[in-house]
């Protein structure tokens, strides 16, 4: 470190603190969510007993505590309910993406609202704009979802 300013030193996060948690069945009981997402499907859990739809997926129903849940499809489209753009102060691993859009998407039919990165430039966004799901690769053979403005057909 001779001659190097201390402020130039970079700390490195341990892997266990990656934003994206392990997704395989070895580490989580909802690995099916990520398996389906990898195939372009968007799913969550629904209680077989009381019918409560949960987000994010669960292993126990938060309403009736039943542990008999089934996987159901979620709409892959929605409308933009709120949005902004992060211009500075990104967390580690996302600095190079600045600026990027963030919004809340209200899924069609069921009204579930999800916070999401929006893969459309901020200047092109409008409230109530139709959105569609996109699946993105994450480091370490993992996947996650985002939304973007729906392409006009």
């Amino acid at each position: 470190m001779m001659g190097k300013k201390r402020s130039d030193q970079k700390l490195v996060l341990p892997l266990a603190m990656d934003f994206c948690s392990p997704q395989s069945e070895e580490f989580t009981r909802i690995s099916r969510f990520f398996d389906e997402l990898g195939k372009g499907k968007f799913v969550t859990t629904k209680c077989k007993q009381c019918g409560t739809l949960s987000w994010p997926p669960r292993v126990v129903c938060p309403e009736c505590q039943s542990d008999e849940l089934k996987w159901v499809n979620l709409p892959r489209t929605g409308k933009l309910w709120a949005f902004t753009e992060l211009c500075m102060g990104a967390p580690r691993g996302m600095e190079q993406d600045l600026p990027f859009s963030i919004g809340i998407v209200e899924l069609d039919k069921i009204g579930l609202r999800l916070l999401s990165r929006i893969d459309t430039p901020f200047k092109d966004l409008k409230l109530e704009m139709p959105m569609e799901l996109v699946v993105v690769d994450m480091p370490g053979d993992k996947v996650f979802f985002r939304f973007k403005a729906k392409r006009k057909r």
Partner: protein
Amino acid sequence: MRKVAVVAGGLCPWGVRKASWRELVQEAGKAVLDDSPDLGKGEIDSLFVGAASPDRFAFQLHVAPLVADMVGIHPTKMVARTELACASGQAAIRYAWLAIAAGLSDVALCLGVEKMNLPDMAEVQTTMTAVLDREWDAIHGASAPPFFAMCAQHHMMHYGTTRHQLSLVSEKNHGFSSTNPYAHFQRPIPAANVEDSPMVAPPLRLYDCSGITDGAAAVILASEERAVELTDTPVWVKGSGQCVSGNNSANWRSLDVWDSMRQAAKTAYSSAGISVSDIDIAEVHDCFTISEIIAYEELGFCKKGQGGKFIEDGQSRIGGKVAVNTRGGLLGCGHPLGATGIAQVVEIYQQMQSKVPRKRQVPDPKVGITHNLSGAANVHSIMVFGRDR
């Protein structure tokens, strides 16, 4: 339940400090003990440490016994760190109050601390982001500024709140912090400068946001019996309220109506036996300008949607309906997460003793409240303090 009072308070200078986590602790510990000359350290039987993330900011767990080391005390009743993100400091005070009220403790130290300025600022942003649901929300790069930016977007759309009204909150609080030698930001900032500051997350600009700050603060709470022996001017804990609405974004029913804050205020006022018109001074959680405007509304200072007008009419300044954030708030003092909730109580304590600089002294305050929100305004914590027993 036994009556409980604040009998001492103190803090270290806040800012980008050339000092480590444990040095901030020592400074705040000295400040609060210097403020209570009649108290023998051996009488402090309990310790609660408000700290949001020493795990990452200082790579240290089991911090409460380390704080006991740094301050040189040996609690024999209760000891713990309290973590509730941005409300960690108030959480410490709530537990100390509960322990004393229940008769499990007689004298408790509450010390809040956060060391946030580190060689690599991405580390701070990463830790702050993890206050949200990290696996499902923070993973999108969302943190506090985008969430509160969207609250502002909705409040402007639904109630006509203006850019200028947001700026007036920042102007007021920086005006107050310029009278506070312990504050991070020592210069007044006119509203026009807020509007010219760099964009963080539209519509929020840099001076709409509280700072990343190193700081510590401490108060001592005591039972009624001990309080009246220790000081002629104790400040009494009169009541409190707290309300939770989950953490994941799927729970956000509204961005600009904060039901859980309204509920927490209702509980706090009724437990203290006060009505909103009794409040002379309020320390509210202005982590962003928009949050102070929504706080006016949900605390009942004005009608829903009138928060922008409330600041514009000067109602939250000294001489208005209720003096809000006279120490400078989070915008002016900075926001060292675990220390904020405790520094707010120090301000109420010193205001009621007429110990603050004259420029920000509220005339004869009898009832004060402190409010902290945490996360994406999912949790609201409110305490009521009174000069009269």
